[in-house]
């Protein structure tokens, strides 16, 4: 059985996306009900950020790993998708080179670097979307958890990781387009990437992916495995003394989370039309953590709400108060940490406590810590 918050989230995300897509596709541009493509692209972007937030919540909320480098996995997934999209441009690039992307022609490269091979196939690219973040997380996590790097030390080295990747991808010699990154995409699986229909479809696919991830994450944290995970989060030493191997539990959820972020990144790229190294910037990772905090750590659904809310606010304020929006955003973070320690989700549960309704159970703090039997 699904609890109500998850159910509502699933319905809203999926239903909302479908509704927007239908209103965009089925109504005339002049109609009052028409949803402009601008909104479709925006909503799609938010949903991808929600996937990143969900991934962060999974490791932070349930395994106590505060990752300040999760955007790295997001960006790696994005780059894998971007490489596929680059190969699809073919001869339609500026230089008309069928084999090499424009930036390589421009750098005077004669042949495709080895790591670009295979990305012309969609299947291979999708495999890489999962594998590249997954393998990096596996190696990094194995080393870090094995040597019991925890707490802020772990946070800082995840930051070092994403910072190192940022610098690496900035280098033009790396073969990923340097600062300009990958852009000028034409089509995906033969569909024009700029057409409204493709955008609507991508929005719906993102919604489906987000819902699937939510269900997977929920399944994981409610399983026996999830119980141990929460024990690790709360007292790692005690769990170890009980005979569990915390590092293995952490590693599994860490890799899963990286893969989820990677998928989010892969869906993000075709919708915003560009991927470049600034996605690796540590500030992006910190922001993802903030989405989770705003929504409510350790609630899964809260992460999604937080991502949608903060990004919506950002879009709104950058247009409405271009000179002052940073004040608003900064104040929001301070306000949330001071007055909403359990985030927006905490707001709902606390309200219940104040005005209990007949069918309401006594809510507990950070509710999702409790596990179904």
């Amino acid at each position, binding site marked *: 059985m699904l609890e109500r918050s998850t159910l509502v989230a699933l319905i809203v995300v999926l239903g909302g996306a479908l509704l927007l897509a239908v209103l965009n596709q089925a109504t005339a541009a002049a109609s009052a009900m028409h949803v402009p493509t601008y909104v479709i692209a925006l909503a799609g972007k938010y949903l991808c950020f929600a996937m990143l937030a969900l991934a962060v919540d999974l490791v932070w909320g349930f395994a106590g790993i505060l990752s300040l480098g999760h955007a790295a996995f997001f960006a790696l997934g994005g780059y894998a998708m971007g490489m596929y999209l680059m190969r699809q441009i073919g001869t339609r690039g500026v230089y008309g080179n069928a084999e090499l992307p424009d930036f390589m022609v421009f750098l005077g490269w004669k042949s495709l670097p080895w790591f670009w091979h295979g990305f012309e196939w969609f299947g291979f690219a999708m495999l890489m979307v999962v594998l590249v973040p997954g393998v990096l997380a596996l190696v990094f996590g194995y080393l870090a958890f094995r040597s019991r790097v925890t707490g802020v030390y772990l946070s*800082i080295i995840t930051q070092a990781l994403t910072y190192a990747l940022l610098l690496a991808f900035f280098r033009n010699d790396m073969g990923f387009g340097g600062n300009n990154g990958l852009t000028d995409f034409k089509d995906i699986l033969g569909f024009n990437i700029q057409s409204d229909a493709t955008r609507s479809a991508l929005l719906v696919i993102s919604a489906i992916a987000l819902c699937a991830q939510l269900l997977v994450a929920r399944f994981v944290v409610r399983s026996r495995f999830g119980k141990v995970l929460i024990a690790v989060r709360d007292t790692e030493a005690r769990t170890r003394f009980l005979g569990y191997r915390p590092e293995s539990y952490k590693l599994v959820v860490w890799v899963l989370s990286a893969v989820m972020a990677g998928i989010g990144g892969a869906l993000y790229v075709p919708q915003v039309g560009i991927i470049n190294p600034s996605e690796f910037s540590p500030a992006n990772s910190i922001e993802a953590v903030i989405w989770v905090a705003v929504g409510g750590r350790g609630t899964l659904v809260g992460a999604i709400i937080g991502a949608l809310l903060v990004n919506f606010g950002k879009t709104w304020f950058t247009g409405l108060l271009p000179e002052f929006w940073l004040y608003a955003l900064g104040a929001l973070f301070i306000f949330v940490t001071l007055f909403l320690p359990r985030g927006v989700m905490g707001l709902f549960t606390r309200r219940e406590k104040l005005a209990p309704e007949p069918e309401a159970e006594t809510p507990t703090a950070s509710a999702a810590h409790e596990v179904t039997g």
Partner: protein
Amino acid sequence: MLRLPAWLMLVLLVLAPLSARAQETDDAYAALAGSAGIPSAAGFDSVRRGVEQLATSGDPRAAVVIGALQAGQLYARADRALFIKQPDGSFVDARSGAPAPDAAGLRPVRLNNAVRSAIDAALGSLRLFAPDAATRLAAAEAVFKSHDPAALPALTRALAKESDAAVKTRMQQARAAALLSSGDASEADRLAAVAMLRARGDIDARGFLASLSGQPQSVATAAAAAITAIDRQLQLWSILQSVYYGISLGSVLLLAAAGLAITFGVMGVINMAHGEMVMIGAYTTFVVQQLMRAYLPGIYAINLLLAIPLAFLVAGAIGVLVERTLIRWLYGRPLETLLATWGLSLVLQQAVRSIFGANNRDVDTPWWMSGATQLGGLTLTWNRMYIVLFAVLVLAALMAALRYTPLGLRMRAVTQNRRMAAAMGIRTPWIDALTFGLGSGVAGMAGVALSQIDNVSPNLGQGYIIDSFMVVVFGGVGNLWGTMLGALTLGIVNKFLEPVAGAVLGKIVVLVLLILFIQRRPRGMFPLKGRAVET
């Protein structure tokens, strides 16, 4: 236009009657007015020629006029008459030195690099006989750079009179360079000159030797050997130089991280607004300089000394305020301090942007921090030297404050065992606020130093926050010695990798090494021991 060859000029100087010389001086003055007005290559060429002619004309006002030209105070009228602007704004006639109250319609004589080189050379040979030894040294160096054979007679005369050993050496080197450039020196003289330059052994000597051409075979061979010898010597120095670069980078990192070592290392607050405290320190410097320029121009040179305590106070006060209003609600929730302070950093950045604008602000470097000094083959830039010194002083003061002052004692007590400290009558909330203020204040002082080497812009802090966290974590949280060693190690490793791997790759390698190091030593170089570890 015709340019007289140097030797011809010499002949003219010796032989020409006085009238011809006066004519030449007239020509020189007229030529000097060439570049007033619309810039053109011919105009600059004319000025350069004028400078060269004037320098060799023997005109008693040559040094004054060329000096005024160098300072940008030489003005020309449409009829090519020249005037010098005095410090009080009035004009004097350049030729006679008489006041020229009727000067009007003047345009400055423009300079370009070619003219500037000519000025340097001209002033060099004119000032070889200056009464002040430092001026003569600079003049000899200028002649060395120009290595104009025309300066040879003057050099020979100056050498005969020179008593200061250092100046004498410089003059001999200048003479050697001029000799090698002249067409009619003997082979033995040339070989001696090469040996003289080989003994000088610095980068300029190497550059000059490498530029030689058309020398006799033996001289060319000797010059090549000298270049090899100098290169070998410079190679050795370059290792030391890299160590110096590393130390100076390390001390910048140390300064940036020292405040964080308190707020994060000692108090456990993940203070993302740390960089903004550094930035506030830098802006305090800017404000202090502006105010002093306006109200206390007499003691402007010491503005940085005044800015240091003020930056400490301003940033420290903001730190106390932040702790009282924000951080204190979040103790025991270290990760949430991250979010709140991140929000705070956004607000502070934008606030600075609103107040001062998004552009860089101009922070002066006082004269005593500009330039560099030469120590053997080492180039030591003054600003970096002072920063190294400053970093050492800040660290020492911080350690002393923690160890020897009552406040330091209380701070340590509170961080080690809050409840016990409270039971002993320590006002822990007050101590928390002061500790956070201390950390922020130290960050503010770092801002004063960084304003000397980096942009003073709202983004200043952002550039250092990641590095600062790396340094503190690498050294071991809560350990000031660790922070210092961490900063120096990262600085030196970085500077040795940079020439090999390039700036970007070098930094990536450092980060990867850091990640691997943390895997080996999960709590940094100097881990805290005891129960504190698990909390």
